[in-house]
């Protein structure tokens, strides 16, 4: 495995209590694989990604436990300089908001060549050439000229392409994309994801793709993690998880996709609120919103295999007490 994350816990300590943003997450990522991460807002997806690259502000954040093995080093325990050598070179990250992720005072060229100069030690002309090629590859027309423009001269979609080019220009082994297309309109989103897919295949880059869009996951990812309240409640191949969801939360998420509703039906929403992460939850975090919850759901749960490629944290499903309706594999 390329990346092996084991029991990652990231807490935020504040005067008002401890926020358990990521609470015992384990997963692995193979070379070239695309892993989707879904879950409601605030369930700790971003914090999980940032933890891997040591980008959690400390304080208030703290990595309480865990290991993230990546090519012989533990990302969570290695020195700052080891981490810097990984960031932006072997593992790159693309942030959600393309409008604010580029430095407004520096030309795009300056920013895209930066990782090449810094990590690869290329000369300026060689770096510029590669940067132009990268911009070209993400679909920026007339890249050789436009690379010298300033960020404000680019639209949101173009800026996000720039960010992606910047992330891929060093040919990283892993690309972490935290909702890379959420701020963009649907057509641009599809174009960009398509480009990323193509480049990923060319470079053999693995990707962790955080998104709210289950359709995107179905279309782009190999495997999927479903997160709830800082924990993974279900994981497996896209086909398994979407075909036969094995956790009531996943089933509910699927049911709430508007496109799968008959016209006129009221939109399905999951009742109740996600739990307050400051409260210690002993059992299943979803129990209070779950229609299948029984007393035994208050006991500690853990992610266990249902089949070799399908894991769930639902005790009742594991015991075979309940069956969940599958929506069939959604495809785009």
């Amino acid at each position, binding site marked *: 495995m390329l990346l092996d994350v084991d029991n990652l816990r990231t807490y935020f300590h504040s005067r008002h209590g401890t926020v358990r943003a990521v609470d015992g997450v384990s997963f692995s990522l193979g070379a070239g694989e695309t892993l989707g991460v879904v879950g409601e807002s605030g369930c700790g997806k971003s914090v999980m990604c940032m933890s891997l*690259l040591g*980008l959690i502000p400390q304080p208030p954040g703290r990595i309480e436990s865990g290991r993230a093995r990546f090519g012989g080093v533990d990302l969570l325990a290695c020195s700052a300089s080891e*981490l*810097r*050598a*990984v*960031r*932006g*070179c072997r593992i*790159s*990250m693309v*942030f959600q*908001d393309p409008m*604010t*992720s*580029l*430095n*407004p*005072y*520096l*030309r795009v060229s300056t920013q895209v060549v*930066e*990782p090449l100069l*810094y*990590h690869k030690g290329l000369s300026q002309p060689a770096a510029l050439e590669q940067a132009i090629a990268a911009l070209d590859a993400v679909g*920026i027309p*007339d890249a050789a*000229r*436009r690379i*010298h*423009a*300033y960020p*404000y*001269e*680019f*639209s949101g*979609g*173009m800026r996000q392409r720039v*960010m992606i080019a*910047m992330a891929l220009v060093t040919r990283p082994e892993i690309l972490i994309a935290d909702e890379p297309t959420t701020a963009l309109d649907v057509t641009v989103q599809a174009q960009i994801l398509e480009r990323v897919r193509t480049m990923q295949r060319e470079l053999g880059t693995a990707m962790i793709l955080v998104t709210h869009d289950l359709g995107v996951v179905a279309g782009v990812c190999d495997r999927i993690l479903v997160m709830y309240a800082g924990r993974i409640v279900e994981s497996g191949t896209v086909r398994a998880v979407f075909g036969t969801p094995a956790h009531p939360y996943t089933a509910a998420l699927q049911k709430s996709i508007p496109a799968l509703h008959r016209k006129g039906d009221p939109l399905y929403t999951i009742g109740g609120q996600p739990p307050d992460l400051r409260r210690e939850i002993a059992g299943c975090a979803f129990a209070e919103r779950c229609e299948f919850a029984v007393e035994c759901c208050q006991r500690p749960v853990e992610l266990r295999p249902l089949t070799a490629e399908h894991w769930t944290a639902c005790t009742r499903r594991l015991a075979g007490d309940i069956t969940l309706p599958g929506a069939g594999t959604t495809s785009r």
Partner: protein
Amino acid sequence: MGNDRTTDVATNPAPRARADGTAGVPEQGTSLWGDALYRLRRNRLARFGLAFSILVTVVSFIGPYCTPYSYDATDLVYGAQSPSPEHWCGTDTLGRDVLTRILYGGRISLTVGFLATAVSLVIGVLYGAVSGYLGGKLDAVMMRAVDILYALPFTVFVILLTVAFGQDLRLLFLAIGAVSWLTMARIVRGQVLFVRRQEYVEAAVALGLGTPRIILRHVIPNVLGPVIVYATLTVPAVMLLEAALSFLGLGVQPPMSSWGVLIKEGAEKMDIYPWLLIWPAAVFSLTLFSLNFLGDGLRDALDPQGARD
């Protein structure tokens, strides 16, 4: 140059399509600095300020070589003379040419102003940026140090230095330099606190860049706007400080001259020989005005609000 923005890459309309003819848009990518310069050039007062400041500086530094008199050459036979074709601004009670002394004094006043500003730029910007970017305990300690220096009464500080080390022009530079960076450090720190929360700084961290590089390349350029404005306003402020000290007899000592010294000497005899006060005071005030106009113009030109509408 035309105003058609051929460099627009946006697939949707440019965020700032400008209706007015934009002269001086570079071929590729107008920088925000380019925009600011353009707005500055349209501001008449700022243009005047810039031109006059440059003029005064150049004349002060070259002038003393061109006048036929030395700044301390006395002519006790004639004493104070009113302005005449030989002495454009008259002479003082010791018969020294006032114009030469104004030019020579300008050299010292401006040097004090620019040098102290340079000190405040280098120390203040680095200090403030490091303090603000690293934050935490280091920030608290660094800023308390600034507070303590701030609390020292400046005049007392200078008097103490003078008593301890005697009259020395270098001491004056040192004293002014020591206090002038404090406000700069505070301004920069405040800006950096904001900038370091920006996503592009986070993105730079995620790119694996080291802290010094992030501070120099990504943080400082983004706080330069307020820094430039404040620096421009520091020059006149420091010159005023120097004048005040010289006026009190703590600064530049005769026979050397500075604008402060000249105004002091002029003020003593202003009822008999008014030109001794009028000329230095006029040049000094005009220079202060110019620098302040320039500073205000820069503030407007670099205002991010202005840059985005």
